[in-house]
Protein backbone atom coordinates (compact mmCIF):
# COMPACT_ATOMS: atom_id res chain seq x y z
CA UNK A 1 0.00 0.00 0.00
CA UNK A 2 2.13 2.84 -1.28
CA UNK A 3 -0.36 5.56 -2.02
CA UNK A 4 -3.12 5.60 0.58
CA UNK A 5 -4.21 9.10 -0.54
CA UNK A 6 -5.39 7.75 -3.89
CA UNK A 7 -7.58 5.17 -2.18
CA UNK A 8 -9.02 7.73 0.19
CA UNK A 9 -10.01 9.91 -2.75
CA UNK A 10 -11.60 6.90 -4.44
CA UNK A 11 -13.49 6.09 -1.23
CA UNK A 12 -14.71 9.67 -1.04
CA UNK A 13 -15.92 9.48 -4.63
CA UNK A 14 -17.70 6.18 -4.05
CA UNK A 15 -19.36 7.49 -0.89
CA UNK A 16 -20.57 10.65 -2.62
CA UNK A 17 -21.82 8.81 -5.70
CA UNK A 18 -23.64 6.31 -3.54
CA UNK A 19 -25.29 8.99 -1.45
CA UNK A 20 -26.34 10.92 -4.55
CA UNK A 21 -27.88 7.85 -6.12
CA UNK A 22 -29.53 6.86 -2.86
CA UNK A 23 -31.33 10.20 -2.74
CA UNK A 24 -32.35 10.55 -6.38
CA UNK A 25 -32.92 6.93 -7.40
CA UNK A 26 -36.52 5.77 -7.28
CA UNK A 27 -36.03 2.12 -8.04
CA UNK A 28 -35.35 0.30 -4.78
CA UNK A 29 -32.84 -2.06 -6.38
CA UNK A 30 -30.80 0.93 -7.45
CA UNK A 31 -30.94 2.32 -3.92
CA UNK A 32 -29.72 -0.99 -2.53
CA UNK A 33 -26.80 -1.03 -4.97
CA UNK A 34 -26.02 2.52 -3.81
CA UNK A 35 -25.91 1.37 -0.18
CA UNK A 36 -23.67 -1.54 -1.10
CA UNK A 37 -21.23 0.77 -2.90
CA UNK A 38 -21.20 3.22 0.02
CA UNK A 39 -20.41 0.25 2.22
CA UNK A 40 -17.40 -0.59 0.04
CA UNK A 41 -16.22 3.00 0.47
CA UNK A 42 -16.44 2.71 4.25
CA UNK A 43 -14.55 -0.59 4.17
CA UNK A 44 -11.77 1.04 2.13
CA UNK A 45 -11.50 3.82 4.70
CA UNK A 46 -11.42 1.29 7.53
CA UNK A 47 -8.59 -0.77 6.06
CA UNK A 48 -6.50 2.08 4.64
CA UNK A 49 -6.65 4.35 7.71
CA UNK A 50 -5.70 1.44 9.95
CA UNK A 51 -2.42 1.40 8.03
CA UNK A 52 0.37 -1.12 8.01
CA UNK A 53 1.61 -3.12 10.95
CA UNK A 54 4.97 -4.86 10.55
CA UNK A 55 4.82 -4.32 6.79
CA UNK A 56 1.44 -5.90 6.13
CA UNK A 57 -2.13 -4.64 6.37
CA UNK A 58 -3.67 -4.43 9.83
CA UNK A 59 -5.16 -7.89 10.39
CA UNK A 60 -7.87 -6.70 12.76
CA UNK A 61 -9.15 -4.13 10.28
CA UNK A 62 -9.25 -6.81 7.58
CA UNK A 63 -11.22 -9.13 9.84
CA UNK A 64 -13.67 -6.35 10.67
CA UNK A 65 -14.24 -5.70 6.97
CA UNK A 66 -14.77 -9.40 6.34
CA UNK A 67 -17.44 -9.39 9.05
CA UNK A 68 -18.90 -6.26 7.50
CA UNK A 69 -19.09 -7.85 4.03
CA UNK A 70 -21.02 -10.85 5.34
CA UNK A 71 -23.40 -8.63 7.32
CA UNK A 72 -23.92 -6.50 4.22
CA UNK A 73 -24.88 -9.49 2.08
CA UNK A 74 -27.31 -10.69 4.75
CA UNK A 75 -28.92 -7.26 4.99
CA UNK A 76 -29.12 -6.89 1.21
CA UNK A 77 -30.66 -10.35 0.83
CA UNK A 78 -33.36 -9.48 3.35
CA UNK A 79 -33.93 -6.11 1.70
CA UNK A 80 -34.34 -7.79 -1.70
CA UNK A 81 -36.89 -10.22 -0.30
CA UNK A 82 -38.72 -7.28 1.22
CA UNK A 83 -38.70 -5.39 -2.08
CA UNK A 84 -39.99 -8.39 -4.04
CA UNK A 85 -42.69 -8.92 -1.44
CA UNK A 86 -43.64 -5.24 -1.51
CA UNK A 87 -43.94 -5.37 -5.28
CA UNK A 88 -46.13 -8.48 -5.02
CA UNK A 89 -48.51 -6.98 -2.50
CA UNK A 90 -48.65 -3.35 -3.67
CA UNK A 91 -47.34 -3.44 -7.23
CA UNK A 92 -44.81 -0.75 -6.45
CA UNK A 93 -41.01 -0.87 -6.51
CA UNK A 94 -40.26 2.54 -5.15
CA UNK A 95 -40.88 4.54 -2.03
CA UNK A 96 -42.95 7.46 -3.15
CA UNK A 97 -42.07 10.43 -0.97
CA UNK A 98 -45.64 11.73 -1.37
CA UNK A 99 -47.08 8.66 0.31
CA UNK A 100 -49.43 9.49 3.12
CA UNK A 101 -48.26 6.80 5.48
CA UNK A 102 -44.92 8.39 6.22
CA UNK A 103 -46.27 11.55 7.76
Amino acid at each position, binding site marked *: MNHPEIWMLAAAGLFGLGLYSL*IIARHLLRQLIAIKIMGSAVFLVLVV*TAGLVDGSL*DGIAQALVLTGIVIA*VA*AIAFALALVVSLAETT*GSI*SLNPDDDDGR
Partner: protein
Amino acid sequence: MVIDVFLALGLVVLAWQALIGGSLFRGIVMFIVFGMVLTLAWAWLGSPDLAMAEAAIGAGVTGALIMIAYWRLRRINAVEPRDPSPARSRLALVIAVLATGLVGAIGLAAVSALTGDATAARVMNETLPDTGLGNPITGVLIVFRNLDTLLEVAVVLAAYIAARAALGRESADLPLPPAPDTPLLTPLVVTLAPLTMVVAIYLLKAGSQYPGGAFQASALLAALGVLLVLTGRVGPAAAANWLTRAGLVIGTLVFCLVGLGMLVIGAPLLAIPGIWAVYLIEAAMMISIGLTLVLLFAGAPGLSGKRS
Protein backbone atom coordinates in the same frame (compact mmCIF):
# COMPACT_ATOMS: atom_id res chain seq x y z
CA MET B 1 1.35 4.42 -8.58
CA VAL B 2 -0.10 4.10 -12.08
CA ILE B 3 -1.84 0.88 -11.15
CA ASP B 4 -3.21 2.44 -7.95
CA VAL B 5 -4.66 5.31 -9.93
CA PHE B 6 -5.98 2.99 -12.61
CA LEU B 7 -7.81 0.73 -10.17
CA ALA B 8 -9.12 3.57 -8.01
CA LEU B 9 -10.36 5.50 -11.01
CA GLY B 10 -11.90 2.33 -12.42
CA LEU B 11 -13.84 1.84 -9.20
CA VAL B 12 -15.27 5.34 -9.29
CA VAL B 13 -16.19 5.12 -12.98
CA LEU B 14 -17.86 1.75 -12.51
CA ALA B 15 -19.78 2.99 -9.48
CA TRP B 16 -20.94 5.94 -11.54
CA GLN B 17 -22.03 3.61 -14.34
CA ALA B 18 -23.78 1.30 -11.90
CA LEU B 19 -25.64 4.03 -10.09
CA ILE B 20 -26.52 6.85 -12.42
CA GLY B 21 -28.30 6.80 -15.73
CA GLY B 22 -28.79 3.88 -18.07
CA SER B 23 -31.06 0.93 -17.62
CA LEU B 24 -31.18 -0.85 -14.30
CA PHE B 25 -30.06 -4.10 -15.91
CA ARG B 26 -26.87 -2.50 -17.17
CA GLY B 27 -26.42 -0.97 -13.73
CA ILE B 28 -26.52 -4.42 -12.16
CA VAL B 29 -23.96 -5.79 -14.63
CA MET B 30 -21.76 -2.79 -13.91
CA PHE B 31 -22.15 -3.45 -10.18
CA ILE B 32 -20.89 -7.00 -10.64
CA VAL B 33 -17.93 -5.70 -12.64
CA PHE B 34 -17.37 -3.17 -9.84
CA GLY B 35 -17.10 -6.10 -7.44
CA MET B 36 -14.48 -7.74 -9.68
CA VAL B 37 -12.40 -4.58 -9.83
CA LEU B 38 -12.73 -4.15 -6.07
CA THR B 39 -11.38 -7.71 -5.80
CA LEU B 40 -8.34 -6.65 -7.80
CA ALA B 41 -8.03 -3.53 -5.64
CA TRP B 42 -7.98 -5.55 -2.40
CA ALA B 43 -5.44 -7.88 -3.96
CA TRP B 44 -3.27 -4.95 -4.99
CA LEU B 45 -3.54 -3.42 -1.50
CA GLY B 46 -2.24 -6.72 -0.15
CA SER B 47 -5.29 -8.38 1.34
CA PRO B 48 -6.02 -11.77 -0.26
CA ASP B 49 -8.71 -12.54 2.31
CA LEU B 50 -10.72 -9.49 1.43
CA ALA B 51 -10.15 -10.08 -2.28
CA MET B 52 -11.65 -13.54 -1.93
CA ALA B 53 -14.54 -12.34 0.17
CA GLU B 54 -15.30 -9.54 -2.25
CA ALA B 55 -15.13 -11.82 -5.30
CA ALA B 56 -17.25 -14.54 -3.75
CA ILE B 57 -19.69 -12.58 -1.60
CA GLY B 58 -19.56 -8.99 -2.79
CA ALA B 59 -19.59 -9.59 -6.53
CA GLY B 60 -20.72 -13.19 -6.84
CA VAL B 61 -23.49 -13.87 -4.36
CA THR B 62 -24.74 -10.29 -4.00
CA GLY B 63 -24.73 -9.90 -7.78
CA ALA B 64 -26.68 -13.13 -8.25
CA LEU B 65 -29.18 -12.11 -5.57
CA ILE B 66 -29.78 -8.70 -7.14
CA MET B 67 -30.03 -10.25 -10.60
CA ILE B 68 -32.69 -12.77 -9.56
CA ALA B 69 -34.61 -10.05 -7.70
CA TYR B 70 -34.55 -7.98 -10.87
CA TRP B 71 -35.91 -10.92 -12.85
CA ARG B 72 -38.69 -11.47 -10.32
CA LEU B 73 -39.64 -7.81 -10.28
CA ARG B 74 -39.94 -7.83 -14.06
CA ARG B 75 -42.20 -10.87 -13.83
CA ILE B 76 -44.41 -9.09 -11.33
CA ASN B 77 -44.65 -6.15 -13.72
CA ALA B 78 -44.55 -3.60 -10.96
CA VAL B 79 -45.10 0.07 -11.74
CA GLU B 80 -41.88 1.70 -12.93
CA PRO B 81 -41.01 4.65 -10.72
CA ARG B 82 -41.10 8.17 -12.09
CA ASP B 83 -38.02 10.33 -12.49
CA PRO B 84 -37.03 12.44 -9.53
CA SER B 85 -37.91 16.11 -9.48
CA PRO B 86 -35.13 18.56 -10.45
CA ALA B 87 -35.25 20.22 -7.03
CA ARG B 88 -34.55 16.88 -5.40
CA SER B 89 -31.67 16.21 -7.81
CA ARG B 90 -30.10 19.58 -7.03
CA LEU B 91 -30.40 19.00 -3.30
CA ALA B 92 -28.93 15.54 -3.74
CA LEU B 93 -26.04 16.97 -5.69
CA VAL B 94 -25.22 19.44 -2.92
CA ILE B 95 -25.41 16.75 -0.25
CA ALA B 96 -23.31 14.35 -2.31
CA VAL B 97 -20.61 16.94 -2.98
CA LEU B 98 -20.48 17.80 0.71
CA ALA B 99 -20.25 14.12 1.64
CA THR B 100 -17.50 13.54 -0.89
CA GLY B 101 -15.58 16.52 0.46
CA LEU B 102 -16.02 15.38 4.04
CA VAL B 103 -14.95 11.78 3.46
CA GLY B 104 -12.07 12.92 1.26
CA ALA B 105 -10.86 15.45 3.83
CA ILE B 106 -11.04 13.13 6.81
CA GLY B 107 -9.57 10.28 4.77
CA LEU B 108 -6.58 12.36 3.75
CA ALA B 109 -6.19 13.73 7.27
CA ALA B 110 -6.33 10.22 8.68
CA VAL B 111 -3.72 8.78 6.33
CA SER B 112 -1.41 11.75 6.87
CA ALA B 113 -1.65 11.08 10.61
CA LEU B 114 -0.83 7.37 10.14
CA THR B 115 1.66 6.23 12.72
CA GLY B 116 1.90 2.61 11.66
CA ASP B 117 1.42 1.67 15.29
CA ALA B 118 -2.03 0.18 15.66
CA THR B 119 -1.97 -1.08 19.23
CA ALA B 120 -4.55 -3.79 18.78
CA ALA B 121 -2.95 -5.23 15.66
CA ARG B 122 0.47 -5.25 17.31
CA VAL B 123 -0.85 -7.16 20.30
CA MET B 124 -2.57 -9.51 17.88
CA ASN B 125 0.59 -10.24 15.94
CA GLU B 126 2.33 -11.08 19.23
CA THR B 127 -0.46 -13.32 20.46
CA LEU B 128 -1.21 -15.14 17.21
CA PRO B 129 1.59 -17.77 17.45
CA ASP B 130 0.11 -19.02 20.76
CA THR B 131 -3.04 -20.11 18.97
CA GLY B 132 -1.34 -22.30 16.39
CA LEU B 133 -3.00 -20.38 13.59
CA GLY B 134 -1.03 -18.84 10.76
CA ASN B 135 -3.70 -16.58 9.33
CA PRO B 136 -4.24 -13.51 11.48
CA ILE B 137 -7.70 -12.90 10.03
CA THR B 138 -8.93 -16.33 11.00
CA GLY B 139 -7.32 -15.71 14.37
CA VAL B 140 -9.31 -12.52 14.89
CA LEU B 141 -12.55 -13.98 13.57
CA ILE B 142 -12.57 -17.30 15.39
CA VAL B 143 -10.35 -16.78 18.43
CA PHE B 144 -9.78 -13.18 19.51
CA ARG B 145 -12.98 -11.41 18.54
CA ASN B 146 -15.23 -14.41 18.06
CA LEU B 147 -18.21 -12.72 19.69
CA ASP B 148 -18.43 -10.55 16.56
CA THR B 149 -18.43 -13.65 14.39
CA LEU B 150 -20.99 -15.44 16.54
CA LEU B 151 -23.36 -12.48 16.31
CA GLU B 152 -22.63 -12.17 12.61
CA VAL B 153 -23.78 -15.74 11.99
CA ALA B 154 -26.86 -14.84 14.02
CA VAL B 155 -27.36 -11.85 11.71
CA VAL B 156 -27.37 -14.18 8.70
CA LEU B 157 -29.91 -16.39 10.47
CA ALA B 158 -32.07 -13.37 11.36
CA ALA B 159 -31.92 -12.16 7.76
CA TYR B 160 -33.16 -15.54 6.56
CA ILE B 161 -36.10 -15.70 8.99
CA ALA B 162 -36.95 -12.07 8.30
CA ALA B 163 -36.89 -12.70 4.55
CA ARG B 164 -39.19 -15.70 5.03
CA ALA B 165 -41.50 -13.53 7.12
CA ALA B 166 -41.55 -10.88 4.40
CA LEU B 167 -42.20 -13.35 1.59
CA GLY B 168 -44.92 -15.12 3.54
CA ARG B 169 -46.71 -18.36 3.02
CA GLU B 170 -48.11 -17.78 -0.43
CA SER B 171 -44.78 -17.15 -2.11
CA ALA B 172 -43.35 -20.45 -1.03
CA ASP B 173 -42.20 -20.79 -4.60
CA LEU B 174 -41.14 -17.51 -6.09
CA PRO B 175 -40.64 -17.65 -9.83
CA LEU B 176 -37.27 -18.78 -11.08
CA PRO B 177 -36.11 -18.39 -14.65
CA PRO B 178 -36.70 -21.53 -16.72
CA ALA B 179 -33.70 -23.81 -16.67
CA PRO B 180 -31.60 -23.24 -19.79
CA ASP B 181 -31.50 -26.29 -21.99
CA THR B 182 -28.16 -26.67 -23.75
CA PRO B 183 -26.01 -29.70 -24.47
CA LEU B 184 -22.96 -28.05 -22.92
CA LEU B 185 -24.46 -27.24 -19.57
CA THR B 186 -24.84 -30.77 -18.22
CA PRO B 187 -21.20 -31.80 -18.57
CA LEU B 188 -20.13 -28.42 -17.23
CA VAL B 189 -22.28 -28.75 -14.12
CA VAL B 190 -21.15 -32.34 -13.63
CA THR B 191 -17.52 -31.21 -13.64
CA LEU B 192 -18.01 -27.96 -11.82
CA ALA B 193 -20.04 -29.23 -8.87
CA PRO B 194 -17.51 -31.63 -7.36
CA LEU B 195 -14.66 -29.31 -8.23
CA THR B 196 -16.31 -26.41 -6.40
CA MET B 197 -16.85 -28.59 -3.35
CA VAL B 198 -13.21 -29.59 -3.31
CA VAL B 199 -12.07 -25.99 -3.63
CA ALA B 200 -14.49 -24.90 -0.88
CA ILE B 201 -13.21 -27.51 1.52
CA TYR B 202 -9.64 -26.65 0.56
CA LEU B 203 -10.29 -22.97 1.31
CA LEU B 204 -11.80 -23.90 4.66
CA LYS B 205 -8.84 -26.09 5.54
CA ALA B 206 -6.28 -23.58 4.28
CA GLY B 207 -7.98 -20.79 6.21
CA SER B 208 -6.16 -21.63 9.42
CA GLN B 209 -2.76 -20.94 7.92
CA TYR B 210 -3.31 -19.03 4.69
CA PRO B 211 -5.95 -16.66 3.40
CA GLY B 212 -9.36 -18.26 3.10
CA GLY B 213 -11.77 -19.61 5.63
CA ALA B 214 -15.38 -20.32 6.35
CA PHE B 215 -16.89 -17.24 4.76
CA GLN B 216 -15.18 -17.58 1.41
CA ALA B 217 -15.88 -21.29 1.36
CA SER B 218 -19.53 -20.77 2.19
CA ALA B 219 -19.87 -18.18 -0.56
CA LEU B 220 -18.38 -20.66 -3.00
CA LEU B 221 -20.84 -23.32 -1.85
CA ALA B 222 -23.62 -20.77 -2.18
CA ALA B 223 -22.52 -20.00 -5.73
CA LEU B 224 -22.61 -23.71 -6.47
CA GLY B 225 -26.10 -23.90 -5.02
CA VAL B 226 -27.18 -20.98 -7.16
CA LEU B 227 -25.86 -22.82 -10.21
CA LEU B 228 -27.73 -25.98 -9.29
CA VAL B 229 -30.95 -24.05 -8.71
CA LEU B 230 -30.62 -22.19 -12.00
CA THR B 231 -29.89 -25.28 -14.04
CA GLY B 232 -32.80 -27.10 -12.47
CA ARG B 233 -30.77 -29.70 -10.59
CA VAL B 234 -32.23 -28.51 -7.32
CA GLY B 235 -35.62 -26.94 -6.95
CA PRO B 236 -37.41 -24.88 -4.34
CA ALA B 237 -39.63 -26.80 -1.96
CA ALA B 238 -42.68 -25.46 -0.18
CA ALA B 239 -41.47 -26.56 3.22
CA ALA B 240 -38.15 -27.11 4.90
CA ASN B 241 -37.44 -30.58 6.17
CA TRP B 242 -35.69 -30.94 9.48
CA LEU B 243 -32.33 -31.46 7.80
CA THR B 244 -32.55 -28.09 6.07
CA ARG B 245 -33.58 -26.39 9.28
CA ALA B 246 -30.78 -28.06 11.18
CA GLY B 247 -28.36 -26.89 8.50
CA LEU B 248 -29.59 -23.34 8.88
CA VAL B 249 -28.90 -23.15 12.60
CA ILE B 250 -25.91 -25.44 12.97
CA GLY B 251 -23.39 -22.58 12.63
CA THR B 252 -24.90 -20.51 15.40
CA LEU B 253 -25.65 -23.51 17.54
CA VAL B 254 -22.21 -25.11 17.39
CA PHE B 255 -20.56 -21.76 18.06
CA CYS B 256 -22.75 -21.10 21.10
CA LEU B 257 -22.40 -24.61 22.47
CA VAL B 258 -18.60 -24.60 22.17
CA GLY B 259 -18.56 -21.20 23.89
CA LEU B 260 -20.85 -22.31 26.70
CA GLY B 261 -19.08 -25.64 26.99
CA MET B 262 -15.85 -23.84 27.77
CA LEU B 263 -17.58 -22.11 30.69
CA VAL B 264 -18.56 -25.48 32.09
CA ILE B 265 -14.95 -26.67 32.20
CA GLY B 266 -13.86 -23.43 33.80
CA ALA B 267 -12.32 -21.66 30.81
CA PRO B 268 -13.39 -18.15 29.78
CA LEU B 269 -16.61 -17.77 27.84
CA LEU B 270 -16.15 -18.53 24.11
CA ALA B 271 -12.52 -19.52 24.58
CA ILE B 272 -11.35 -21.77 21.74
CA PRO B 273 -9.72 -24.94 23.07
CA GLY B 274 -7.68 -25.80 19.99
CA ILE B 275 -7.34 -26.01 16.25
CA TRP B 276 -9.96 -28.77 16.07
CA ALA B 277 -12.52 -26.38 17.51
CA VAL B 278 -11.60 -23.79 14.89
CA TYR B 279 -12.25 -26.33 12.13
CA LEU B 280 -15.46 -27.52 13.79
CA ILE B 281 -16.87 -24.02 14.09
CA GLU B 282 -15.77 -23.01 10.61
CA ALA B 283 -17.26 -26.11 9.01
CA ALA B 284 -20.57 -25.52 10.80
CA MET B 285 -20.59 -21.87 9.77
CA MET B 286 -19.79 -22.79 6.18
CA ILE B 287 -22.81 -25.10 6.01
CA SER B 288 -25.16 -22.58 7.62
CA ILE B 289 -24.16 -19.53 5.64
CA GLY B 290 -23.92 -21.35 2.32
CA LEU B 291 -27.33 -22.97 2.79
CA THR B 292 -28.92 -19.71 3.94
CA LEU B 293 -27.66 -17.82 0.90
CA VAL B 294 -28.92 -20.51 -1.49
CA LEU B 295 -32.35 -20.50 0.15
CA LEU B 296 -32.48 -16.72 -0.05
CA PHE B 297 -31.63 -16.97 -3.74
CA ALA B 298 -34.27 -19.62 -4.39
CA GLY B 299 -36.76 -17.60 -2.35
CA ALA B 300 -38.09 -20.78 -0.82
CA PRO B 301 -38.15 -22.27 2.66
CA GLY B 302 -36.61 -25.51 1.49
CA LEU B 303 -34.93 -27.34 -1.35
CA SER B 304 -35.98 -30.49 -3.14
CA GLY B 305 -34.11 -32.89 -5.34
CA LYS B 306 -35.34 -31.84 -8.71
CA ARG B 307 -37.10 -28.85 -10.16
CA SER B 308 -40.39 -29.65 -11.78
